[in-house]
């Protein structure tokens, strides 16, 4: 199975009957889709289920993708909608989850042990953890911008916002991330800045 094809070529193949070609799309974007769902849903188990659902929905409605935008922008719009539907069903607050309880749990761990764990963590793992501590909206926009390589215009399209609103939200999300890092990973951040 060739993987040198671009998204539109693969989609054409799938639409013309080569259903197995869809596996290339799944393999290509599973980490992106899973990361995005995890950022919004927080539970790995649920995120994996929702990510599967996203790929199934995308397959089912593939004929509706007409190439007006990038395939990833279309796919991430499905991610956003599916996550929102899931969270509504679960009656979770999707606006801004206060993750202080995560730290309450973390604080219960013996401080020496915690220091040891933290020491072992790489800078990148710390960033990932800090993103995990953000509210769903903040984590989602940061992931879309940095990991899913979406422009502000594309993010605005995915989230149904104006470009300027997306820009402001991204600024706020980064500020909050920086604050989380500085509050909860003080020593590590000092080392990074120095």
């Amino acid at each position, binding site marked *: 199975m060739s993987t040198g094809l671009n998204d539109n070529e693969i989609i054409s193949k799938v639409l013309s009957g080569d259903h197995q070609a869809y*596996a290339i799309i799944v393999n290509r974007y599973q980490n992106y889709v899973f990361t995005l769902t995890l950022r919004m849903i927080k539970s790995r188990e649920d995120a994996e289920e929702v990510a599967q659902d996203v790929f199934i929905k995308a397959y089912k409605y593939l004929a509706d993708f007409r190439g007006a935008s990038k395939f990833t922008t279309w796919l991430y719009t499905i991610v956003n909608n599916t996550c929102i539907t899931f969270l509504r069903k679960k009656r979770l607050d999707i606006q801004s989850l206060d993750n202080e309880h995560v730290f309450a749990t973390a604080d219960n761990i013996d401080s020496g042990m915690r220091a040891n764990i933290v020491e072992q963590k790489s800078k*990148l793992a710390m960033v*990932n953890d800090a993103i995990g501590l953000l509210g769903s909206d903040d984590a989602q926009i940061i992931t879309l911008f940095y990991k899913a390589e979406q422009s502000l215009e594309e993010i605005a399209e995915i989230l149904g916002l104006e470009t300027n609103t997306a820009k402001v939200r991204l600024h706020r999300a*980064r500020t909050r991330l920086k604050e989380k890092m500085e509050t909860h990973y003080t020593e590590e951040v000092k080392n990074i800045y120095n």
Partner: protein
Amino acid sequence: MDTTSYNNPEQGNQEERLWNYIDGTATATEKTLIEKLIESNAEWKEKYRELLEVNQLLQASELEAPSMRFSKNVMEEISRVHIAPATKSYINKKIIWGLGFFFITMFIGFLIYGIGQMTFTGGEESTLTKNISKVDFSKFFNNTWVNAFMMINVVVGLFLLDMFLSNKRKEFRKQA
């Protein structure tokens, strides 16, 4: 450690300008100004270094991976699913136009009916401009059905206007 940057408007503005500079969304003039500030002002230089570090960490951060069976599970599931025909192919434009025609006809019908219900108390002078002030509009506008129908039409009109404007905006963005 600063945790109040968002409560401090001056600092918030500084960060926002620096993020615009880092993202490459600042205008050419703003870019030159920020470059000068970074060179000449120690506070700006320090903040720029911090934000750049965060930016680099974010760019280098790793993606999460689902379980090993993820792809296989999806492919198994889609073997039971059929690709739906494109929405465009089953939404018949004739039906949409037909519905539009129906509403417009109904609207005109109600309008004619309403006008028919009005009392024209004109005298011998029969010019329209003179008679229009004598028309009793209260019967027309106090009719609940007419009011309800007018309201529906206003909502439909606003909806169509919104669709038209968002299409225009998309076209404008594409051209830009």
